[in-house]
């Protein structure tokens, strides 16, 4: 352990962010990294637990707490404290192919389980991770690696989201020939267009893709498997096919007036903005919230991303509706450490909305009962009702003005055209069923991982799935595997 008493003596310090008022003028990332010296102190707060819950990914009370990648957190925290950032990198990338993604967008299940968090603030694990990987990029430590061998095994990976990329990276470095198919114009999947630039600037993805390409991974864009290329052709051309197409079917809200103009799915709204960004500034056509009363349905991270984006669009007002009650400020007794904390978190978008509009955009325990449209079919408002203990409260009906509604209510499952193409059955969760809780599907040499197998989830899970799937594919191809 770096510093035995670090957790007692030093307080948690987060990367400072630009003031809300200034950062809303652009779409760039807005955190500033601590100095190396301060970062060391943050590394030194890690207690190097005998049982590090941070990397356990245990399910408690139905929620995962701790890192699904089983990142070797205490090890790299220790290296940070000792100033060995190169070593920290090697411990970090041993379990995580893309720390630059997770350190930006992960909700940090690790910090939820951090033992330090039992008595105070958890270790700043996610930002420590960020520091390691960005330091590495800045210092040229991330370079294309040489493959020790190239086998005659060809692998097609369908989808370039985090799961597909993780699998591609591992299988490629193992020595196989990997081709990634992406239906969009650029790689990254939801990373690319589902997550706003404020959280993940897109050159971060480009930077990684360039390295993977240099290492030998082939990327083929704007090619939709099942549409542009048939499943049978793929099966014919490759020794293994990995389906990593995500689970992008958004959950809809079927209430009267749903057909009104001005109702969008959050993901479409966000990607429209991202696509319109050139050099960090909006240009061309995109779904704009400018001067609109916006109602966002869904209190999750995506809803928050929508809030932030709408702020930058200069919406007239922003309301974010959440069905669930307002969470407490601190853990309730029935939600003890190391369970994932169900506490109120005011995210960057909400913070910005408060700054701009003077009040918190969130309304809790409320759902929409009807969309109101004018005679032209254009949305003008939403009718809401309060929900207590899952039941509507009579008399609590309200009408809110709304020119734009963004539905950020999660996803229901996969888009089935790929599975159909491979004649793969879809299960009750609207995902692809694999064999023996592994990654092989019922069709010979077809594998599936990521959201497509698991259902919509976190980037960190996608990477974990991609990694594990790669190992199974290797074993399938070679009859043995030495991958860890």
């Amino acid at each position: 352990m770096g510093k035995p008493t670090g957790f007692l003596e030093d307080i948690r310090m987060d990367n400072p962010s630009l003031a809300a008022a200034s950062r809303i003028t652009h779409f760039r990332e807005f955190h500033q990294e601590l100095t190396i010296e301060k970062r060391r102190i943050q590394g030194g707060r890690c207690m190097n637990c005998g049982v590090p819950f941070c990397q356990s990914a245990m399910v408690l009370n139905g929620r995962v707490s701790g890192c699904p990648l089983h990142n070797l957190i205490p090890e790299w925290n220790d290296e940070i404290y000792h100033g060995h950032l190169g070593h920290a990198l090697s411990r970090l990338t041993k379990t995580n192919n893309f720390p630059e993604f997770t350190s930006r967008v992960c909700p940090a299940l690790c910090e939820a389980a951090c033992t330090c968090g039992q008595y105070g603030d958890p270790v700043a694990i996610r930002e420590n991770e960020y520091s390691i990987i960005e330091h590495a990029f800045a210092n040229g430590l991330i370079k294309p690696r040489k493959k020790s061998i190239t086998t005659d095994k060809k692998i097609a990976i369908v989808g370039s989201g985090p799961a597909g990329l993780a699998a591609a990276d591992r299988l490629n470095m193992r020595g196989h020939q990997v081709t990634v198919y992406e239906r969009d114009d650029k790689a990254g999947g939801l990373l690319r267009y589902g997550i706003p630039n404020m959280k993940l600037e897109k050159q971060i993805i480009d930077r990684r893709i360039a390295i993977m390409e240099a290492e030998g991974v082939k990327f083929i864009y704007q090619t939709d498997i099942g549409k542009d290329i048939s499943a049978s052709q793929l099966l014919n051309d490759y020794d293994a096919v990995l389906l990593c197409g995500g689970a992008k079917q958004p959950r809809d809200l079927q209430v009267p007036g749903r057909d009104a103009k001005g109702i969008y799915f959050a993901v479409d709204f966000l990607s429209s903005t991202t696509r319109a960004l050139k050099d960090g500034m909006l240009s061309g056509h995109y779904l704009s919230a400018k001067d609109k009363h916006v109602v966002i349905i869904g209190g999750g991270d995506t809803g928050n991303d929508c809030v932030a984006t709408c702020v930058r669009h200069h919406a007239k007002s922003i309301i974010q509706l959440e069905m669930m009650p307002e969470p407490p400020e601190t853990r309730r007794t029935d939600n003890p450490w190391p369970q994932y904390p169900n506490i109120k978190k005011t995210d960057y978008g909400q913070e910005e909305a408060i700054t701009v509009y003077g009040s918190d955009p969130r309304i809790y325990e409320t759902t929409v009962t009807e969309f109101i449209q004018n005679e032209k079919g254009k949305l003008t408002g939403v009718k809401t009702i309060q929900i207590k203990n899952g039941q509507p409260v009579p008399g609590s009906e309200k009408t809110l003005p709304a020119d734009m509604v963004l539905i950020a209510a999660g996803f229901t499952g996969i888009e089935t055209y790929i599975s159909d193409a491979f004649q793969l059955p879809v299960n009750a969760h609207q995902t692809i069923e694999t064999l023996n809780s592994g990654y092989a599907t019922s069709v010979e040499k077809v594998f599936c991982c990521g959201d497509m197998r698991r259902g919509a989830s976190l980037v960190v899970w996608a990477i974990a799935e991609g990694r594990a799937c790669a190992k199974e594919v290797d074993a399938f191809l070679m009859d043995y595997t030495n991958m860890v």
Partner: protein
Amino acid sequence: MTKTLYEKRFEHDACGIGAIVNIDGRKSHAVVDNALSIVEKLEHRAGKDASGKTGDGVGILVQISHTFFSKVAKEMHIDIGDSRDYGVGMFFFPNDRLKRNQARKMLELISQKEGIVFLGWREVPVHPEILGQKARDCMPKIMQCFLKRPEHLEKGLAFDRKLYAIRREFEQSNDNTYVASLSSRTIVYKGMFLVNQLRIFYPDLQDSDYQSAIALVHSRFSTNTNPSWDRAHPNRFILHNGEINTIRGNVDRMLAREETMVSPVMQDEIDKILPVVNVSGSDSAMLDNTLEFLVMNGVPLPLAVMILIPEPWSNDIDMDRAKRDMYHYYATMMEPWDGPAAILFSDGDTVGAVLDRNGLRPSRYYITDDNTLILSSEVGVLDIPAEKIVQKSRLQPGKMLLVDTKAKRIISDEECKMTFAKKQPYGEWLDRYLVRLEDLPLPNKKLEKLNQKDRDRLYKAFGYTYEEVKNAILPMAQNGSEPTASMGTDIPLAVLSENHQLLFNYFKQGFAQVTNPPIDAIREKIVTDTTVYVGSDGNLLQEKAENCRVLQIENPILSGNDLAKIKAMHKPGFKVETISILYFKNTPLARAIDRMCINCDRAYANGANIMILSDRGVDENHVAIPSLLAVSALEQHLVRTKKRTSVSVILESGEPRDVHQFATLLGYGARAVHPYLAHECIIELIEKGLLDKEYSAAVKDYNQAILKGIVKIASKMGISTLQSYQSAQIFEAIGIKESVIEEYFTNTVSRVGGIGLEEISEGIEWRHSHAFDPLGLGVDTTLDSIGIHQLRSGADKEDHMYSPEVIIALREAAWHNDYEKFKYYTSLVDNEKIPHTLRGLLQFNTDQVTPIPLEMVETEEEIVKRFKTGAMSYGSISQEAHECLAIAMNRIGGKSNSGEGGEKPERLGTERNSAIKQVASGRFGVTSEYLVSAKEIQIKMAQGAKPGEGGHLPGKKVYPWIAATRYSTPGVSLISPPPHHDVYSIEDLAQLIFDLKNANQKARISVKLVSEAGVGTVAAGVAKAGAQVILISGYDGGTGAAPQSSIYHAGLPWELGIAEAHQTLIQNGLRSRVILETDGKLMTGRDVAIACMLGAEEFGFATAPLMTLGCVMMRVCNLDTCPAGIATQNPELRKRFAGKPEYVINFMMMMARQLREIMASLGISKVEDLIGRSDLLSVRDQSITARQASVDLARVLVKANPSMQDKVHYDPLNSFDFELEKTLDMSVLLKKFMPHIKNQTPYSCSLDVSSTNRTLGTILGSEITRYHQKELPDDFYTVQAKGGGGQSFGAFIPQGLTIRLTGDSNDYFGKGLSGGKLVIAPDPKSRFKAEENIIIGNVALYGATSGKAFINGIAGERFAVRNSGAVAVVEGVGDHGCEYMTGGRVVILGRTGKNFAAGMSGGIAYVLDQDHDLYLRINKSMVSMSDVTNKQDITELYDLIASHVQETHSPKGQDILNHFTEVLPYFKKIIPDDYRQMLEKINELEQGMMDHEEAKLSAFYSLVNTQ
């Protein structure tokens, strides 16, 4: 029939010894008679069986009495001629007449063939009717024979040599007959007796014509009650009190030496004699065999003893050069037979006595005015008028006492040794032939260095992990010592792990407990030696210069340069050959090993005598034989082919890196090891900036850390020299197949079967393929983290029993008293798919049983009375946690354990009082009050996490409140000795048990042992010694700090220990005498049920209750940073403590509930009926891997059947009877004192004492403590005693009680003194000078906490060891005086022995240093010496001497007082540095108007902050 876990070789014994010699060689019957009286007085040092009627063995060695034998021969019409014209043999024949006659005939034939006239047989008259049943059942037919001396052989040795040859020849062909002695000079009478039966059984000994000038007696205390007639002592030359710890290696090498030894006197007969050693004998018998062999082959007896048991010479700068050279010369040929030993030896003319280097057995002697020497384990065994005694002395460590009855004088140690030292020019010989490694030239060649890629691959091929590099190699290279860790181990045994653990991990270190003491290699460094010798051993039997032509290596962990020097050495007499231990992948391992042996044979044939086994060159196709397998296989091959002493094996390997690994390699035969990959790793750490240190310094520190670790591992077994540790094989294998053991690890204990070569190969290939992908595909070359100590989640990691899920489930179950959650928790722990432990492989047999309803099972409230919490000291855990456990256990009628740190007096008698009070080697806070407050007193002989080791509590953890409870100074570190210095053997433990029983008659006495091979026999011994509870701890339990290698590799799982103890106790009819308890990661009701079914009836839990209090297995107990406020004293962290007694209670109740459910399912209604029901257990049908399936638990599960009506659980009716009513305390003192104690009125009385009145005054003291809450004035109660005081005189007596003794006293005088006063002075009629004679024995005032002692004479070794508050004045002390002392004052008006003030961290000693040579004998690592100049000090010194004179009338004291100013400059003040600093600081703060308590706290914090 399946064997039980017991094996005959586990037996140990220890004893009482005695000798009477008339120095003038005047024979008399009185000598015999008095010797018999001595042994009769040593009853408490003898063992007996459960019935109390059969003894473990008693015997006597005397001269052949011509007056007697000529008389009996005449009656038989045999003409035996003159004195020494005949030899007498003492035979134990079989009772079967045919067999007996055959054997007799055989002896007659052999003598005839040897040209010796056979004179006749005599049936020895005996009285079998006095014997116990057991002894009578196995009594042999006892006969003597007479053999006539031929003319051509001289009387004495020459004739005895012939008799020796006859006896050896006879022994080879007659296994059923034991020859007790066959000599023309001495004879041995012995048998399975109680001490008083020897005399009566053999009427010969009572015959007044039986006259001898020499008589040696011995009473045996065996750990077992299956002793036999022949195992009794004396042997033919020696009798021995102690153990030979290194026996395995000694014997192997002795057997191998047969090939290199050429006898100058018996070469023609050598074939008849060999083998030298009878390997089925006891360690003493084998030592006797060897000694006898040397003597018969021309080595003078005293020299032979010196060769086998040398005094520690290598670190003794004071020793005469010639003597050093002699020892050095012989060291090149013979490793010490190391272990606690007091040996008496005689050839009929000379009598000698020698003590081992540590002086671990007591030996005192008197010389009387009729020139008789009386030596015994104790004084006071014969009533000799004071005026007849001219000298009282003791045998000193490593020293020899010799009486030559022919020369009619005593030969001093110095004279005897110098005579031999000057016989040959040993120094010149060494100078000419001995080669020192440091003198060899370094070849002009660059050392091989690997590139990063190769390193990375080799790491993988040899299974290196990130954890090992960061937590073992790095800290060792950085700090030069092995890192510590805490909270025990919870990963699977190697054989059960899915991770192909290295072969090293299958071997568990043995350690000393009870039957021999571990030693302190740090504080008692003067006795250790790490030198090893390499090359061909010389001919031991002939003194010649070339014999010492060997290479001397000071540190057997070699650097690259060291190895290069050896490889390149060109010296006559040496030929170095490197033998590869690599083989082609896919070759069967057995073949690879065979090839290695063949290559070695070939090299040997070509003259090589140093073989370097090397695994350099591992690549895609070449894999290495596991280094341990290679070394041990070759060692066994060399032993079998008798080349062992002509060839030395050095290992060059990438595999070893941690301490345990090196220890196994040396323990199985490597003479030196070069760990090239570990060294490469250090290079890498430096290159990459992880270690900021110069390379050679880093390697040196790393090597030093390994060496220190090995020395510690050896010292845990009581072994002081690495030379003796090598090949001693002190390990038990767990999980290795019998055939592999037999072939490659011959004689290693292995009782549960396990993997064979195939599985070992699998592991090799598994690792190799991770380094070198079979098809060359990309592999992860970074080091893996598999989470051995600190858990790691994910695939391919080690499974920990305390996983994150388990911890959370357990705490939630306990917090909410949620039994469903508890069952979920236990289902995780008991998951049969991932067994971690042997019990994990077991299941309950429910087929044949009829379940009963739960209501019929004993209630939870009853069951929890059998539950205890683990021994965790106040100090290791916080007050909050400590009290919480106590409250919880008291509320449910279970027991909490104080641990070894004492307890705050205000807790005693309240709900916060710990029911169990622990007495450990440190004796912290062990006061009369503490003991009286206990329901159970537990003697901690060993601790699961680090058996065989003491503790070291660094100063910064000794907070003021901890210091107060431990009677020490805040901020000053505390050291616990590895052994209890009053327990070096089983009969010593019996004494301590007796002491504690006296200190609190109401408490039951418990002895805590750690599971290891042979713990069953130890338990049997402990049961015989009077313990009521025996706790067998598993190796895996344990909080607190311990070296990493100890946590994982020392000791065994409790399953083996408890089963062995249960089985062995039953076999000995002792089971119902004791309560068996177990602990060590007992986590579920299932665990408890299995423990019970293997024999346990009480159960301890430590980690699990801590979890309920918030512990999350941080494993930082050693750092004082426990975030849960449990294992910390930091007030900030303690505020976080959130535990409640209810949580612990909930846990205990749910455990009991689950046990009840299991009992119901097994149809058993009472726990009592579940004990030992191993028939209801079987091995789980489906094992998960082939490796697990190879484990064979038959010997664990075999049900020992009790003989007769003995119950298989504790039966109060069968409790040990201490016969306390017979003590003087009960029979005399209490009767007189009790009314005065109750009325609180002063009183005094006088009485006579003898050595059998042990622990005098302790019961009286305990009653005073019980009745008097407040402190009494000095001398309120006084006992005036006269005579020879027994052991533990005045132990634990409290304030207000004074005992004065006129006479002398034995060991442990004033043990644990708790405020009382002890005064001892010689009888005024004595003729000797008090200040020149020994008056009290060893280990006086051990663990004293307060009080005073005035001793008018010299004390033995280890005076005031661990004293924390008593004040004492004495007139001279032996070695290791004031060792580990933490407080109090000691004034010494005379000489001290060696190693004074070792480990002393508090208190002050004033020593009169008249010769200005005290500096030579002080251990200065912690203390400083100065003149006494401070005014306060001078006053204190004067007052103490004045008190001494007042109490004892000491002439020397009076003399000093008379000339105080002249004498004062000769006084030295010895004070520990840290202690002085602390006192000064506190003083300074008090001057600044701070009150004392506040000053202590501030001083403490200022110290901690500067550290």
